[in-house]
């Protein structure tokens, strides 16, 4: 494809994005699906364009309808290029980190930039810790305090659930991890998180787990948590 055609595609892409901001018709994703390589090339180039990445409405369409469909060779590089930018808007940064985390170890090149975000505000710290754990950051133990803090403090239940899942996924350092998990089983305000932890506990034969499950079975306010705690106790041989 020559430059003239690429320019045409770029123009059409941004026209459609602007139309999509006014009325959702999902025409952008249809368009990107036809030209995944070309659009990938365009977006990769564009992320250095400050006005582009600072336009939240425009970027929201890009996140939802463009990025999912661009060619593989541009996906991680685009996200990594984005996350390197220091003045990226908070919501865009958060979503970019989430997308990187979902790629797991394919996103290893983003690790240094994600580590930087561990020193940022609370929500970025939380999502970065989760992303680093998913990507397989080799110093997992360094992430444990951040994950425990996320489990305790994240506003969104799903983020807390992710933290719990990642904490139990490593068979190590239970002494540091368990108190936070037990505390969450008892006190997390969302039953979905508590039932998940109760379920995970069915496979963790460590000190304190059975007592925590028994307490949940006897005292939790939600019937699902009580039921799952009971199942987990049976799984542990009680």
């Amino acid at each position, binding site marked *: 494809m020559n430059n003239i055609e690429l320019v045409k595609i770029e123009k059409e892409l941004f026209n459609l994005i602007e139309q999509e901001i006014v009325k*959702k018709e*999902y025409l952008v*994703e*249809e368009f*990107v*699906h036809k030209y*995944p390589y070309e659009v990938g090339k365009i977006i990769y180039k564009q992320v250095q364009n400050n006005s582009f990445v600072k336009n939240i409405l425009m970027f929201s369409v890009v996140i*939802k309808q463009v*990025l*999912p*469909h661009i060619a593989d060779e541009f*996906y991680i590089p685009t996200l990594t290029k984005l996350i390197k930018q220091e003045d990226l808007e908070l919501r865009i940064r958060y979503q970019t980190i989430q*997308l990187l985390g*979902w*790629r*797991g170890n*394919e996103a290893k090149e983003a690790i240094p930039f994600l580590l930087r975000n561990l020193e940022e505000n609370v929500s970025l710290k939380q999502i970065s810790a989760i992303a680093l754990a998913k990507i397989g950051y080799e110093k997992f133990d360094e992430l444990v305090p951040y994950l425990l803090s996320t489990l305790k403090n994240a506003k969104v239940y*799903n983020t807390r*659930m*992710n933290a719990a*899942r990642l904490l139990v996924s490593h068979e190590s350092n239970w002494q540091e991890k368990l108190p936070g998990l037990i505390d969450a089983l008892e006190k997390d305000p969302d039953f*979905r998180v508590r*039932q*998940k932890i109760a*379920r995970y506990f069915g496979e963790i034969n460590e000190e304190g787990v059975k007592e925590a499950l028994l307490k949940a079975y006897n005292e939790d*306010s*939600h*019937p*699902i948590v*009580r*039921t*799952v705690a009971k*199942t987990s106790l049976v799984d542990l041989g009680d």
Partner: protein
Amino acid sequence: MSDKDIKEKTKKLTVSPEFTLKDDFERFSEYDSIFGRIKWDKSMKTYKIFMYDKVPEILDEKQAGYTHIDHALAIASWTVHDYFRNAFSWEKLGSPSNMMPDVKPEKYEVNDTNIGKITNTIKAVAKSFGASMVGIAPYDEKWVYTEDRAETPIDIPEGMTAAIAIGTVMDSDTISTSPSMTQGFASGMGYSQMAFIVSSLAEFIRGLGYRAIPMGNDTALSIPIAVDAGLGQVGRNGLLTTKEHGARVRLCKVFTDIPLKFDKKIDFGLTDYCRRCKRCAEACENDAISFDNEPSFKTFTRSNNKGIYRWTVNVDKCYEFWVDNGGECSTCIAVCPFNLRSGKKFTEPADYWERRLAEQ
């Protein structure tokens, strides 16, 4: 083979709409489905534990979504499906209450000039009976179960040429309360609607002089038939996913020998989307959905059909949560971004009831 080579090779494989099947793919036996195995497979954690068995210990009047009313609603929504005994009859329905003798006109002729019209008519009729979407695929024996849950062989009569795939969009208000018993209403309604739609459509086709086999979940795999019929693609959560409603669609089908035109399959980029999105996997109440970046031929349980390239769901784990939940779960359906295009975000069951009661 190096990782790079494997990646290159698997890049060419597709999940849907074109299925990638390996040599070890075989037609599936419904005896091996979850609902078949719970009756005979002692290796299952949920052997002889049925979906509603834990309801008495789960019901809690202090917990919205798990009250007696929620459970009664979920069960009642299945009424037409459960009590319309002949909904899925392979034969023409007869009724002793018919006052008028049945008239048998000549077989309706379908030829090259009117096949398009009759195809559209079938779709229009299905929608009049309540279908939200209708697609038509060639009859494909590989999606037919070899036997039912009771191990009775399934023998589709010779001459079936088309599979009419039907989807009904499920109620978003209740699905958005998942996990809860309340959301069981959406599934149950879907099943009851399906019983009415396929039985009526089958009677319509029979009225034209052709054969029709109406089916709910039984007899054949609804999802690949729906993909072949152009209704959607298969998502990370293993369900048929449509562009407008995600997987918030109940499927059923009718096999027939009336000549019909076939629909094209659709590809709206779902596989690429699912590769980069793991919302359903993260939200799944029992981690039954794969977190793998790429699909594969992996299977987890006997209830996974071998030899199909996809993200395979550990259906044993999925069902384990249904039992603990006192009924089905639709969390993966509810959180899917495609569902959220037309459906609602998570709603607390208490808020759902507050709104419904305020409307009265």
